[in-house]
């Protein structure tokens, strides 16, 4: 899932300092699960902002709403009737949701309530570890299910580098070498020959936002093209 963490309070407070009426919009999907930007986190942030602004003798009126998702226009449409009542919006969704919300209401200043940190697994309650960098060229099939792009400090598709040292990465003894782990797992599975496989360089050139259209969802005119 997409994981995020709440922005530092002082940064948030500073961003919305000039505004008197602010709508705080939570997101009910990924950031709710990772305890960063759901209904409860919206309420906590609002309580904090309310107190801080009162102490500064600059009171603020805060609205709170949590949408099912902010990366879908049909849910963002729920804000259409209420957005006009506010001077600015804080979105506690991931970077995707924040941008989509800002796109729907281009006349409103929109501020991020969280820092999006990546695609991560849930290791324990409130404890998340990144596993995917969404590189768009998955090699997990030949790396024993361990992502070298995420787990290797250099993101090497064809590793390891010279910095591997007794199973650890040169950057830190706490950081395992991804390619050492891949070697271990592949040899345990008897598939070590895969490690000799060569992955062509990823085309990082001219990066533009990637578009994904699932099979069967193309419009007829796009099919012909």
């Amino acid at each position: 899932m997409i994981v995020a963490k709440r922005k530092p309070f002082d940064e948030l407070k500073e961003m919305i300092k000039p505004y008197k009426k602010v709508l705080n919009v939570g997101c009910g999907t990924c950031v709710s699960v990772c305890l960063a930007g759901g209904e409860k986190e919206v309420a906590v942030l609002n309580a904090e902002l309310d107190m801080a602004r009162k102490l500064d003798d600059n009171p603020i009126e805060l609205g709170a709403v949590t949408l099912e998702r902010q990366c879908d226009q049909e849910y963002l449409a729920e804000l259409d009737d209420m957005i006009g009542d506010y001077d600015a919006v804080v979105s506690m969704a991931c970077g995707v949701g924040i941008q989509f919300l800002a796109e729907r209401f281009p006349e409103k200043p929109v501020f991020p309530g969280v820092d999006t940190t990546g695609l991560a697994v849930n290791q324990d309650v409130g404890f998340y570890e990144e596993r995917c960098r969404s590189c768009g060229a998955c090699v997990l099939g030949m790396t024993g299910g361990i992502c070298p792009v995420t787990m290797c400090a250099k993101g090497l598709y064809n590793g390891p580098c010279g910095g591997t040292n007794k199973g650890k990465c040169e950057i830190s003894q706490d950081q395992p070498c991804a390619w050492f782990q891949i070697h271990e797992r592949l040899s345990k599975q008897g598939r070590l020959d895969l490690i000799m496989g060569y992955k062509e360089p990823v085309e990082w050139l001219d990066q533009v936002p990637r578009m994904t259209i699932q099979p069967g969802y193309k419009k007829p005119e796009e099919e012909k093209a």
Partner: protein
Amino acid sequence: MRLEYPASVKIIHVPCSGKVDVLHLLRAIQKGADGAYIVGCLEGSCHFNEGNYRAKERVQYVSSLLEEVGIEGDRVRMYNLTSGEGPTFAAYAKEMTDHIRALGPNPIKSKVKS
């Protein structure tokens, strides 16, 4: 036992200290309470295993949130005792009251609309 404890303490019953949420404590201070504290079971003896540990963590979290805002984090506290310790309950109520009195009124209070 007819024990006395400060009249300023208002008790809210919950089935377990683990029921107390960050928002309960935060809203109490937001609405002008000078302090808020949780009295839970002794550590290690929670009927639900970890309710009082969760409460403790939440108190610490709220304390850090209050500090961020500019209010003394020590206005929220956690105490532990067993259900048979009435005198300790009264002693904790007095200790918390004295502690809050020393801190003075909640700075929000003068700014909260009545």
